[in-house]
Each structure stands twice: as structure tokens, then as C-alpha cells.
């Protein structure tokens, strides 16, 4: 009898050990929803008539890598968005002409984001591209200077895509509503019709760069092969297999650790803004995240409701129906994709956290926010569980 009971006990223990191999139907559905295979086709961007034009994308690629598109000829988009580094720069805060206040974001899948930048202060990829071009610490140039440069260096390519360039004879070499005092004065002195023509050239440069950026996509990783096998009811094998530790991490990710709450869908982001109690950086100006970003995007002359949008304003739902103010915007920052994240420290909007281990620790401790309310709740996680979560994140790299 005693021996038989022991056999039953061992069988039950064996069963319990095997159980982790079996996902519930709900877990399977969640895993399938995270696979790149679940990503719908990229929607058209009707606000940019050249969004899917091959010549525009090629021109945009030229512009993306063009250092002369800056005040002193040393800064391109690619300076901080490095093609062999997931289009980011591995720095806590990016360095153009000077050091900025924010971490460069990677670009894969960026065309799917309703709002751009950590604080969502731009509402289209083409409008986003215009920001750094005139930021004094990034490219530091002016829209008038860029119009002259494009006319001189790429006039034919520009005109084949966008039609005739305006007459630039009377346009100052450097002028912008956002530049130095002299550049602002030069801009103010221009006739309104000419300002509008320059703004159109400037917006078109953004539209070409956006057409290129639309082609930057996520590549399937080990996790996707695993998820596709699970979704198909097969046992993941060979290239699709994950280690026991990685599967354990996946279970925590979609279960008790609640990561999937915000890091959801095939891009592992809900495209929204959250306060997660990430501390400010000493010495940097106060950064209220979405609270300030919401105001900026509403005021942006290049936003969806402005005159430089192509197509109808039916495409402007994100802007029209965004939350414009309130407690929930305070120190809320965009949920970044976790694809490739394990391979691109440091983390957070100003590079506050150096390693992925420290990021997991931050989410477990859930510190209070210096203002507004952190959405995090403290977690109990053993060393083994932390290691499993990190191992799982590694399956999203390649």
C-alpha cells in the first residue's frame, strides 16, 4: 500500500512538472496575439500622398543619411538612428550638435505609431521628421536653409516627386520661426505666401523621410516561431523551441508580472502613455512627458489638422479624440516596443536605467512618481523569476 501511494505521489509530482508545457486556451490566444504574424498590413497614410511612393522612399533614404541636412554639415537622422543598431544610438541621451534630454527611439514599425516621440508631441511620421531638423541640439538648421540645400543638391529628384520648387531667389539663406533671433527676424520679414511655400518644401522633406521610414519593420525572432507553432497547435521544435526558462518567463510576462497589460500586440506596445514612476534626471529640465506633449501636438502647425496634410481630415481621429489634459498625462511616456529591447540598453525616456536587470527591478519595486501617479503595483518575484523574464525578453531579439 505504502509503495503504491508513493507511486501515485511521484506520478502527481511528474504531472505537475509536465503541466508548464501545456498552455491554457487563453494563454495560447495571448501568445498568438503577440506574434508578428498577427500584425495587420500597414494602413495607408492618406495625410502623406507619397507615403508609399518608391521614388519618395528612395529620396527619403538619401535625406535620412545626409549630414549636410544640418547647421554645420555633421548631423544626419542616421547620426542618432544607426542602421546597424536598430536605428538607435545606445546612449542615455542622444547627441546631435549638442546633448539632448531624451533617449533615441528605435524605428522598426514606427509607421504604426499614432503619436511620435516619447511624449507624443507629433501625430505623423512626416511631421515628426521636421522636429529634429530645426532643433538647436539636433540638426540645428532652418527650413529656409534646407529649401536652398535641396534645390541645389537634389532639385531634380525633389521635383520629380513633388513638382516644381518655389522661386528661392528672395529667400534668406537661413530663416525659421524656431531659429535664433536673427533667423526668426529673417522669417518674419518674408511675405506670408513665401513662408507658406517654404513650409510646403519643408513638409515635403518630412514626407519623403517618412516614406523611407515606413519600410523599416520588425523581423521575426525565435519568439515568433514559437508563438506560431503554439497557435497552430504544434509542439515548438528546433528553431521554434524556447528553453524551459524562456517559457517560464513568457508565462510570467503574460501572467503574474502583468507586463502584457501595456506591452501588448505584435509590437509589444499599446501605443499609449503611462506614468511608471521613472525618476527624473538631475540637472535636466523638468519633463512632464505626455502632459506637455499633448499641448505641443495640438499647437503644431504641421499636425493632421494643419494645411500641410494631404487627403481629408477623416484621417485625424487620433488628434481630434486624444485626451488633452488631466492627471493621467502627468509624467506619462510612450510604451516602447520590447522587440529587440534586451539588446539596446540603456532604458527609459532619458536613459535613466542602465541594464535590463535594473529595469525588471524597477517594475518589481514600483517606486512612486515624483508627480502624477505611477500605474505600477509592487510585485513579488524570486531571483529565478526575474532571470526567466529577462531570458524571455532575449527571445525577442533575433
Amino acid at each position, binding site marked *: *500500500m*505504502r509503495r503504491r*501511494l*508513493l507511486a501515485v*505521489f511521484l506520478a*502527481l509530482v511528474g504531472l*505537475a512538472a509536465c503541466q508548464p508545457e501545456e498552455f491554457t486556451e487563453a494563454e495560447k490566444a*495571448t501568445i498568438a496575439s503577440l506574434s508578428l504574424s498577427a500584425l495587420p498590413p500597414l494602413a495607408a497614410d492618406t495625410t502623406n500622398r507619397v507615403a508609399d511612393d518608391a521614388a519618395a522612399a528612395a529620396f527619403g533614404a538619401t535625406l535620412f543619411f545626409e549630414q549636410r541636412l544640418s547647421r554645420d554639415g555633421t548631423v544626419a537622422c542616421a547620426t542618432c538612428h544607426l542602421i546597424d543598431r536598430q536605428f538607435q544610438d545606445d546612449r542615455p541621451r542622444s547627441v546631435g550638435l549638442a546633448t539632448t534630454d531624451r533617449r533615441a527611439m528605435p524605428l522598426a514599425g514606427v509607421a504604426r505609431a*499614432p503619436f511620435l516621440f516619447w511624449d507624443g508631441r507629433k501625430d505623423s511620421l512626416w511631421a515628426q521628421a521636421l522636429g529634429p531638423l530645426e532643433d538647436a541640439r539636433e540638426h540645428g538648421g532652418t527650413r529656409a536653409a534646407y529649401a536652398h540645400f535641396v534645390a541645389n543638391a537634389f532639385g531634380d529628384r525633389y521635383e520629380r516627386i513633388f513638382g516644381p520648387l518655389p522661386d528661392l531667389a528672395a529667400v534668406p539663406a537661413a530663416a525659421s520661426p524656431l531659429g535664433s533671433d536673427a533667423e526668426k527676424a529673417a522669417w518674419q520679414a518674408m511675405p506670408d505666401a513665401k513662408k507658406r511655400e517654404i513650409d510646403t518644401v519643408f513638409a515635403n522633406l518630412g514626407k519623403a523621410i517618412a516614406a523611407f521610414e515606413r519600410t523599416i519593420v520588425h523581423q521575426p525572432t525565435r519568439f515568433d516561431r514559437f508563438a506560431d507553432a503554439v497557435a497552430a497547435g504544434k509542439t515548438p521544435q528546433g528553431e521554434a523551441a524556447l528553453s524551459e526558462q524562456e517559457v517560464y518567463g513568457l508565462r510570467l510576462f503574460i*501572467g*503574474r508580472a*502583468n507586463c502584457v*497589460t*501595456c506591452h*501588448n*500586440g505584435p509590437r509589444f506596445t*499599446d*501605443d*499609449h502613455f503611462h506614468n511608471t514612476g521613472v525618476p527624473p534626471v538631475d540637472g535636466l529640465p523638468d519633463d512632464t512627458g505626455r502632459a506637455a506633449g499633448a499641448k505641443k501636438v495640438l499647437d503644431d502647425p504641421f499636425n493632421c489638422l494643419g494645411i500641410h496634410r494631404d487627403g481629408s481630415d477623416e484621417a485625424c*481621429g*487620433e488628434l*481630434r*479624440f*486624444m*485626451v*488633452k489634459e*488631466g492627471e*493621467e498625462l502627468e509624467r506619462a511616456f510612450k510604451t516602447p516596443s520590447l522587440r529587440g529591447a534586451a539588446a539596446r540598453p540603456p532604458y527609459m525616456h532619458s536613459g535613466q536605467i542602465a541594464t535590463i536587470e535594473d529595469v525588471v527591478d524597477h517594475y518589481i519595486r514600483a517606486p512612486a512618481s515624483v508627480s502624477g501617479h505611477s*500605474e505600477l503595483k509592487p510585485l513579488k518575484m524570486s531571483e529565478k523569476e526575474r532571470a526567466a523574464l529577462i531570458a524571455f525578453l532575449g527571445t525577442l531579439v533575433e
Partner: protein
Amino acid sequence: MNRRTILVVLAAIAIVAAAAFIAFRMMMTPPEGLDLARSKASAKGLYAVAIAPEKEPLEQGPLHSWILTVKTPDGAPVEGATIAVGGGMPQHGHGLPTQPQATAYLGEGRYRIEGVRFNMSGWWEFTFDIRAAVGNDNVVFNLTL
């Protein structure tokens, strides 16, 4: 190991497993028996209200529209109502990620509600404050994604 020890160990395993399961369910799933009806009376009974997404199935992620139908309890369409839309996730303690609005009256008591997004899965409340000639009332619908 005697028989009693083994039973105690088995019982302990069962309790731990059940507790873990319950904790998981509490965090991730809506409460049992949640009223998921898409048509109901408003809180004070002034209106019979129904909601339907403009497109089925309901998807997590994209911005989309709903049709809100407001009638009196005896079935007469309510026209000219002022509608305020709200809601959020009670288990997460946050509101809607967007600010939906009633943007058009479509006739027969129907209003288009634009700018709705559900950015997470789980239990959502979707609330409507209705102001019309009959009076002010509100209604709360539950949705699960």
C-alpha cells in the same frame, strides 16, 4: 513516509496551486457574472439605451466608432440629446485612453460615438451621460476584451 504525510503533502500542493490560480484570475480576468448586456435602462430609468460597435468584431488597438441608441422606456427615439462619453478599467484604475465624442445624430435616436480605443485587454466600463428634454441620466456598460 507514511500515508498521512503523503496526503498532507498532496493537500498542500493542491491548496498552493488553487491559491495561485485564484490570484491569477483576480488580476487578469473580469469579475464573475459581470453584466455584459449591450442594451439596458439608464440609472434612473429615464432612457432605454443600446450600444453597438460600428464594426464587429470589437478589436483591441485601433480607433473606432460606436452607435449609441437612446429611446424612452416606451420606445420613442430621443432626439437632440447631449451625450458625454467616459469610462475606463476599474481593475487598473485608469480612464479611457481617448476622449470619445458624440459627433453626429443619425436619426431614430441613434448617435455616432467617434474616437473610441481600448488599448488593453480586460474589463472596461463604457459610460454615457445623457441630457435631453426628458431629463439627465447616465448608463454604464461593461465590455470585456
